[in-house]
């Protein structure tokens, strides 16, 4: 999981399939990132924000009771304990610092669950930037709490009424807006999707999860490296950041998708939102709407690097149903006192299923990234109860 080069290729995937009007803007972001990332000053500013604002490093929590029930050794990387409640903040602070360094005054973002939107609104407030967040109308309804949070933080939330009115359409609308606003605005993409350099840059900002977890596993486990590394996959940013810390070890990498949004597990090669990757499509090549109870996984594709890891066989992508995810959420809450986000609960659900089916051998060590906390999902869950 290295530098994909100027063309942004991960094997056959990635690239920069954007309108000519955005080519210069994407290049500008790439140049700025290539220049900022090795700069000790930039690294210092980011490290400090991650420490004093986000609360990093996040703990690695051994979950004793659930582990005992499942006959495995499960460790959770606690991104749910970050400021704003999910891993999204790691990426956003990196990009917001970059935007400011580039002299941009305005952040644009798309959001599904609202976690990336809240993180963007937070970073904008913190760094004195303006923020405009595009969000599908359906997500606005089911993640209302996060909409209030974004507005309270001073961000403008723009409802998107087209298509499935979820993350896919919010992303399209953010790109349309950016075409007309490149001079002052920076597009802060929320996952490892989009045109080069975003998939690479977002993974690089998220790899703090994997790097910390690697060190924490070394301290916690007699084997130093876990047998399995598991994360949920929407676009794939928490998984990419997690995998990056373990890709050069013997750990098996597992990405867990929502059954109704399984780009990596069920998608076909296509081009959407700037990248060649795997997308759910019908026989005519029209993108199919995703359906998941977890708004953050409700995306019909996956980042290009995941498509590549899948082809290489280095990572495996599996799916979990809405019901499995909600039961896993409740089970984790009752055994460990942790209310996870519905997205993260997908990863937990796969571990529960795989342990039950003997797919995870007894005693296996499993490092799972718990990407976020479930406060935002309480109203969705209340309706189910």
């Amino acid at each position: 999981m290295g530098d994909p080069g100027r063309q942004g290729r991960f094997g056959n995937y990635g690239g920069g399939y954007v309108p000519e009007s955005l080519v210069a803007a994407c290049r500008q972001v790439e140049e700025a990132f290539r220049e900022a990332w090795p700069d000790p000053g930039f690294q210092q500013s980011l490290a400090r924000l991650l420490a004093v604002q986000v609360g990093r490093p996040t703990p690695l929590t051994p979950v004793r009771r659930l582990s005992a029930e499942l006959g495995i050794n499960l460790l959770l990387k606690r991104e749910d304990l970050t400021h704003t409640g999910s891993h999204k903040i790691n990426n956003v602070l990196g990009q917001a610092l970059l935007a400011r360094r580039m002299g941009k005054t305005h952040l644009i973002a798309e959001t599904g669950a609202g976690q990336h939107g809240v993180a963007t609104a937070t970073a904008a407030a913190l760094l004195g930037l303006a923020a405009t967040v595009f969000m599908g109308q359906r997500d606005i309804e089911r993640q209302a709490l996060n909409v209030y949070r974004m507005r309270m933080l001073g961000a403008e939330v723009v409802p998107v009424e087209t298509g499935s009115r979820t993350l896919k359409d919010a992303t399209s609308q953010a790109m349309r807006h950016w075409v007309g606003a490149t001079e002052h605005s920076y597009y802060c993409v929320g996952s490892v999707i989009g045109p080069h350099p975003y998939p690479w840059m977002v993974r690089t900002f998220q790899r703090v999860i994997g790097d910390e977890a690697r060190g924490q596993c070394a301290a916690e486990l007699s084997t130093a490296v876990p047998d399995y590394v598991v994360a949920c996959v929407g676009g794939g940013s928490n998984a990419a950041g997690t995998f990056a810390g373990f890709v050069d070890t013997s750990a098996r990498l597992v990405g867990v998708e929502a059954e109704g949004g399984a780009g990596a597990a069920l998608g076909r090669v296509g081009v959407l939102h700037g990248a060649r990757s795997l997308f759910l499509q019908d026989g005519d090549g029209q993108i199919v709407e995703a359906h998941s109870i977890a708004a953050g996984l409700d995306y019909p594709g996956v980042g290009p690097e995941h498509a590549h890891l899948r082809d290489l066989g280095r990572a495996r992508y599996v799916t979990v149903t809405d019901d499995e995810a909600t039961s896993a959420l409740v089970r984790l809450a009752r055994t460990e006192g942790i209310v996870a986000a519905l997205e993260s609960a997908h990863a937990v659900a796969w571990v529960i299923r795989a342990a039950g089916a003997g797919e995870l051998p007894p005693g296996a060590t499993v490092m799972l990234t718990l990407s976020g906390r479930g406060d935002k999902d309480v109203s969705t869950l209340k309706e189910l109860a």
Partner: protein
Amino acid sequence: MRLEDHLRSRRAAGRKLLMPYLTGGVTATWVDHLRALADAGADAIEVGLPFSDPTLDGVTIQEATDAALARGATVRGILGDITGFTDDVPLVASTYYNLVVRDGPERFCAALRDAGISGLIVPDLPLDEAGEAADAAASVGVDLVLLASPATPQPRLAEIARRSRGFVYAVSLMGTTGERATVAESAATLASRIKGSTDRPVLVGFGISTPQQAVEAARSADGVIVGAAIMRRVLDGATPDDVGADLAKMRRALDQERDQP
């Protein structure tokens, strides 16, 4: 005839080029609209092949796309509708790259050629990614049109003009498709810059909504592309005759401008 040869000969005859856009399959009788546009003096017609996620289109063409897809429009169906349409007015397909990738560029371009289409516009396929599609198009005699934008810097602009076929599509402004009250200032600057580096025809598109705007935009270019203004009328229920009459007004305005001493 090749798209580019046709446009060059029309230009050589002293005429400003007019290229209307129509979303394929937008209504059951969309081919009648196509015919009306051809009869009203179009030099070529852009036929949109609807894609579920048109990221460079504003609300009007998004709405037309949704309408076409809701009717069940497909690439195959649209190509079937226009097969044998006419030889006099070249048709140029425009779509997003996912639909090209779906069948693979070779098969996609061959299907265009078999339906009598002579050009292809793919707004999310910039120069850097266009190699495969350009080869596939060239091998079946379809002209792959590249787009230039006000943000395109100089050495790249010349490369786009050099590698484009058919014409060079000058995107008049930094934004999506859709009607605008005025022609952006960037339109004339961009068209002149492109014309400074190529003798290929240069057509200005995005936001050209009225005959006056067409005349103004065509001054520094070889012609104009008119999309959302037509689709707005079609979505509002305009008949083929209505749409033909609108285009004829643009045609007359462009011709009068030429005939003025």
